[in-house]
């Protein structure tokens, strides 16, 4: 059993290094030019956001519409720190401080609101995100109000983005496989039954919410550092909706689904830039059509993993054997 685990671990490591090296190669060969690099950054940020929201909504079953609020906290904290300490350690400190602040706010917000269920929780988290946005809008002296923060030093490159994205995916998928993660899934399946089995549902809901907020903070910090400019408008209600769309499109409760959906949506948006005036119409139509014909999302709650190749190989072998 232990050996199997190690083999899987090596497989994961190899595939991660391969992904990193291939993209790094494409960047140095200038096949991924600076325009596509910003798409790449947007995809990485969206993956972090989607995977962390999937932990809250897909695995723990708590419907949150306020993810952009946590993202904005990470973005503002990181931007304010790197504007004062424009060095690499300053950037690392900024990302970390942003994520921790978002997580702390996550606990403060989560404790009272996570008692609510379903749509009530959705609307409460929406309200909370809007309040955070309005606070940033009104703290003119620190956040420069509606005009936003400009000239945020850029530290992110592919290596940083990859490190944070892969880290997020690994930590969250390991969390889900742990006993804590199984407790979260049991809450999604049936909260009353989970409580009857001795799962402290409030504690696990707040834990999932806090971890989600932490990584949303990281995504916000990376956003600020990549795009050099933030204002409160970016982190409005529609940003939260965008993140939720990625999660639902990929499949609630499927991490690989979230990753695939984030990559697909990133590529589609880049190519739809050419039709700027009807871009949103096409996007909304695609959303409606996908939901009508595949309401469980692209992946459902299944995961895409390397073992699928093993299985394909096995079925091929068995077919060959029969002939």
């Amino acid at each position, binding site marked *: 059993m232990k050996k199997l685990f190690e083999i899987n671990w090596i497989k994961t490591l190899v595939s991660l290094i391969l992904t990193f090296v291939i993209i790094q190669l494409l960047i140095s060969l200038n096949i991924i030019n600076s325009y596509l690099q910003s798409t790449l950054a947007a995809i990485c940020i969206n993956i972090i956001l989607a995977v962390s929201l999937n932990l809250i*909504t897909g695995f723990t079953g708590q*419907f949150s519409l306020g993810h952009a609020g946590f993202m904005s906290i990470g973005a503002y904290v990181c931007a304010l720190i790197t504007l004062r300490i424009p060095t690499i350690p300053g950037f690392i400190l900024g990302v970390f401080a942003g994520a921790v602040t978002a997580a702390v706010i996550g606990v403060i917000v989560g404790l*009272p*609101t996570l*008692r*609510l269920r*379903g*749509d*009530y929780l*959705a*609307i*409460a988290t*929406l*309200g*909370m995100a*809007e*309040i955070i946005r*309005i*606070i940033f*809008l*009104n703290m003119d002296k620190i956040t420069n109000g509606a005009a936003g923060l400009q000239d945020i030093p850029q530290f992110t490159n592919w290596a940083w983005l990859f490190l944070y994205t892969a880290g997020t995916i690994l930590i969250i998928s390991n969390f889900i496989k742990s006993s804590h993660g199984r407790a979260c899934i049991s809450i999604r399946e049936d909260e*009353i*039954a989970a409580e009857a089995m001795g799962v402290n549902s409030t504690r696990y809901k707040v834990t999932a919410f806090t971890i989600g907020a932490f990584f949303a903070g990281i995504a916000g910090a990376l956003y600020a550092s990549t795009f050099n400019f933030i204002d409160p408008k970016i982190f409005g*209600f*529609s940003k939260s*909706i965008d993140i*939720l*769309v990625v999660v*639902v*499109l990929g499949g*609630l409760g499927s991490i690989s689904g979230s990753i695939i959906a984030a990559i697909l949506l990133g590529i589609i948006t880049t190519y739809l830039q050419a039709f700027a*005036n*009807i871009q*949103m*119409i096409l*996007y*909304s*139509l695609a*959303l*409606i059509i996908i*939901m*009508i014909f595949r*309401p*469980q999302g692209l992946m459902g709650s299944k995961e895409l993993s390397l073992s699928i190749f093993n299985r394909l190989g096995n079925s091929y072998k068995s077919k060959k054997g029969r002939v």
Partner: protein
Amino acid sequence: MERLLQQIINGISLGSIYALIALGYTMVYGIIKLINFAHSDIYMLGAFIGYFSMTTLKLGFIPSLLLSMVFCTIIGVVIEKVAYKPLRHATRIAVLITAIGVSLFLEYTTMAIAGANVRSYPPLTGILTKSFMLGNINISMLQILILGITIILMILLQFIVKKTRIGKAMRAVSLDSDAAELMGINVNTTISFTFALGSALAGAAGIMVGIYYNSINPLMGMLPGIKAFIAAVFGGIGIIPGAMIGGYFIGIVEVLVSGYSNSLYRDGVVFAILILVLIIKPTGLLGKNSREKV
């Protein structure tokens, strides 16, 4: 004191509009448990249809109001048939994402057709331009008209829901749609009718916002939509009188906050009220606590 009364009068006009939109949200939520995000865009379409009817067709206010209500009814029913009906048995989050898709579709299609710029309604004529003083409080004919139309529509709605056969069917379906179906109620027709009623009210709200604030744009529905939904939650979602009370309450609070302090905090206060209500009494002002069953 006079200032307070004046603000409350202004708040009632705004509240009327929120109440009309909130009614649509609350009825749809009551019957299929869906936060119909597209509802706020039907309100926006109501404002645009009213605008074209008053400028291009040169119709008066009342014919424009009726025209806009009729068109919004049709659009509401079509949306329900095309987008929501195939998802009757899907998860609620899938239906919600569809509603968001419909909302974006309506916003950006309107933007592509009518342009993103802000349009202003034609100036009012005749008796509507008048206003009179009650003591030191200024009341315009327009505010009386808005309140009057809202009250008439609400009485009409109460009559339909309480006294007609289809209203009885609506109440039955919102209580238990499976049981209602077994009793011979056509659930699909009833749901369509609910969307029709809600959309007609949103259309009326749209054109009244147009003449009251005099400026419309394709994204105007977003924030009032969320606030109207908050109004519905405040009063107790699914409860029609609750939506009316909630709408007026949110309208008055909003005007008071922007009158007495920084208007930037206006939206923040509304959201803070929402969170407080949800934490203290999640079922809303008029909602009944239902016990959780396994």
